[in-house]
C-alpha cells in the first residue's frame, strides 16, 4: 500500500470534518476522493500531505508512519485548486523550486525542468510569470512543480475546480494519460462524479466525514452500498418507494403484472436522450428513453403509459429508506 489511513478523525471547533476514516490506497493507482462539498475529502487529502494534523488516527506513506512528520519530510507532491503558483517567479523557477532548495547541481535542475516543461506541454512559456498563463497552463505548471521532486505520492485537491468546462474535460483526459505515463500513486479530490468515473481506477466516496464506499467506478455504480452512494453517482428517481436509475425504467403501451400505471406530464428531447416526466399516484417520476422508444410509444402529455423496472438492474445492497 502506498498510503494507509487508519482511524483518522478531525474536528474544526464543533464541526466534524472526518469521523474515524480508514482507507488503503494501492501503489501506482489513480484514486479519487469523491463527495459533496464540505464532506471532508479535502481535509483527508491535507492530512495525508501533513498540511493538517489529525485529532486521532495514523497516516502511513510507503510503509513509514508519517503521522507526526512535517509536510517537508513526507515526500508528497501537492497540487492546489487555485494553483498556488509562486507569482513572483517565472514558470521555470516555479518548477525548479523543489530541486533548487535540495541544492541539486544547476545542469541537473535545468535538464529536469526542461523535461517536465515538455511533459506538461508548456515549454514555450518557461520565461513567463504565472500571471501571464491561462488557468489550465498554470495548473499544468503546478503539476510539473509537484512532480519535479519525484514524490512518493501525488495529491491533487480539486485540481480542475477553477477551470471552465472545456479546459476541465481536456485536462481530465490528459491527467489520465499522464498517469499512465508516469505511474506515480495519485490521489485527487473532486466533487464531480463524472470526473471521478472518467479518470479514477478507484473511487472512495466520502460524505459528512465518513467513508461511504470504496471500489472501482463500476462497482460503485452497479453495486452501491446505500441510497446515498446510488444517488451521488448518477441520476435517480423513485418508483413505488425505491430508488431506480431513470435509464432502467421501461415504458410499455400495455399493462402487465410488473407494471405501474403513469400519466405523461412532459416530454423533453435532449439530443439522443428523451426525458419523460411522469406522474404515478401523485408522485413525480422520470424516465430516460431513446428517441426511437419515444416515437414508437407516441409519447405526449396526458397519455397513459405503463412503467416497469428493467430486470437486468441490480438493487442497492441494502434497499433501505429513500429520500
Amino acid at each position, binding site marked *: 500500500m502506498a498510503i494507509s489511513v487508519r482511524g483518522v478523525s478531525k474536528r474544526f471547533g464543533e464541526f466534524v470534518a472526518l469521523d474515524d476514516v480508514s482507507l488503503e490506497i494501492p501503489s501506482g493507482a489513480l484514486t479519487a476522493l469523491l463527495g459533496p462539498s464540505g464532506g471532508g475529502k479535502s481535509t483527508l487529502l491535507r492530512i495525508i500531505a501533513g498540511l493538517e494534523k489529525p485529532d486521532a488516527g495514523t497516516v502511513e506513506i510507503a510503509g513509514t508512519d508519517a503521522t507526526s512528520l512535517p509536510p517537508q519530510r513526507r515526500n508528497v507532491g501537492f497540487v492546489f485548486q487555485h494553483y498556488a503558483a509562486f507569482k513572483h517567479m517565472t514558470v521555470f523557477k516555479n518548477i525548479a523550486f523543489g530541486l533548487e532548495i535540495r541544492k541539486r547541481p544547476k545542469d541537473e535542475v535545468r535538464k529536469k525542468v526542461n523535461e517536465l516543461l515538455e511533459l506538461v506541454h508548456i515549454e514555450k512559456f518557461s520565461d513567463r510569470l504565472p500571471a501571464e498563463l491561462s488557468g489550465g497552463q*498554470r495548473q499544468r505548471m503546478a503539476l510539473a512543480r509537484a512532480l519535479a521532486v519525484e514524490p512518493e505520492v501525488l495529491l491533487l485537491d480539486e485540481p480542475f475546480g477553477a477551470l471552465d468546462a472545456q479546459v476541465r474535460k481536456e485536462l481530465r483526459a490528459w491527467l489520465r494519460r499522464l498517469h499512465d505515463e508516469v505511474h506515480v500513486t495519485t490521489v485527487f479530490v473532486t466533487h464531480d462524479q463524472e470526473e471521478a468515473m472518467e479518470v479514477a481506477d478507484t473511487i472512495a466516496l466520502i460524505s459528512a466525514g465518513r467513508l461511504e464506499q470504496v471500489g472501482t467506478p463500476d462497482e460503485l455504480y452497479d453495486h452501491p452500498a446505500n441510497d446515498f452512494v446510488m444517488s451521488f453517482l448518477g441520476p435517480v428517481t423513485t418508483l413505488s418507494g425505491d430508488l431506480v436509475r431513470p435509464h432502467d425504467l421501461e415504458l410499455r403501451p400495455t399493462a402487465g403484472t410488473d407494471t405501474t400505471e403513469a400519466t405523461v406530464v412532459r416530454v423533453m428531447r435532449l439530443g439522443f436522450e428523451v426525458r419523460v416526466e411522469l406522474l404515478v399516484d401523485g408522485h413525480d417520476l422520470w424516465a430516460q428513453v431513446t428517441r426511437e422508444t419515444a416515437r414508437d410509444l407516441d409519447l405526449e402529455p396526458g397519455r397513459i403509459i405503463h412503467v416497469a423496472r428493467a430486470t437486468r438492474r441490480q438493487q442497492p445492497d441494502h434497499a433501505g429508506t429513500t429520500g
Partner: protein
Amino acid sequence: MTQLDAPVPIAHRPAPASRSVRRSPSGFGLSVGFVTIYLSLIVLIPLGAVVSRSNNHGLSGFWHQVTAPDALSALRLTVVAAALVSAINAVMGTLIAWILVRDRFPGQRVIDALIDLPFALPTIVAGLVLLALYGPNSAIHVSFAYTRPAVVIALLFVTLPFVVRSVQPVLMELDQEMEEAAKSLGASPFTTFRRVVLPNLVPAILAGTALSFARAISEFGSTVLITGNIPNKTEVAAVHIYSQIQSDNVAGAAALSTVLLLVALVALVAFNLIQRWATRRG
C-alpha cells in the same frame, strides 16, 4: 474565471509602468488640468518660493549657508538618524505586521489600534511623552534626554505606522497556499519565508520605508523637547531651520530647506526605482 483562462499573448503583456505613458482620452483633459493647477497651488509654487528664496544671494551665498558647521551637522545627524530609523522600521514594521496578520493573541486588536496612535498624536505631545519617560526625571530611571539616541527614539516613535500599515494589507492578501506549496516541496519555514513570502512583501516594505524616511528627515515636534536642540550635537535639520528663522537668518533657513527638499526627493525617487527593480526581478 474567464480572465484566467485566456492566454496572454506576449505582445499584450502589460508594459512596465514607467513606459506606459498613455494619452488621456479627451474627456479627462479637464480633470488633468484641474489636478495640475491644484498641485501647483498646494505644492509646487510654495516649494518654488523656498528654492528661489534660498538663492537670493546667488549660488555662493547658498553654498555658504549650507556648509556652515552647525547646518552641516544638523543635516548629517538628520540623514543618518533617518536612515537608521528606516532600516529598523523595515525589519520591525514587517515583524509587527506579521504577528498582527498571522498570529492570534489576546490584546491583538488593541495593539492593532495602537499602531496608528503615533500618527494621530500631535508630535509635540509625542515629544512630551518621551520626555516624561526618558527625560531627566525619568519614571523608569532611563535617561536619553539631550543625546543623539534620543533623536533616534523620537523618530522611531513617530514613524512606527508606515511600514506596518503598508505591509499589513499585502500580507493579508497573500495566498497562504503558496507557503503550503513551498513546504510540501521540502522548504523549511525559513526558506519558505525568504524565497516565497519576503519577495512578495518587498515592494510594500520599500514603500513603507521610503515614507518613514521622508517623515523622519522632516520631523520637528517630537524631537524638539527631548533632544534639547544642542547645535552641532542633537539639533536636527527641521529644528535648525526654525532656529535660523528665530535668529532672522531667513536665507539660511531657506537654503537648508532646499537641501532637505532635495534629500527627500532623491530618497523617494531612489526607493521608487528600487521598488520597480525588485518587482520586475521578482
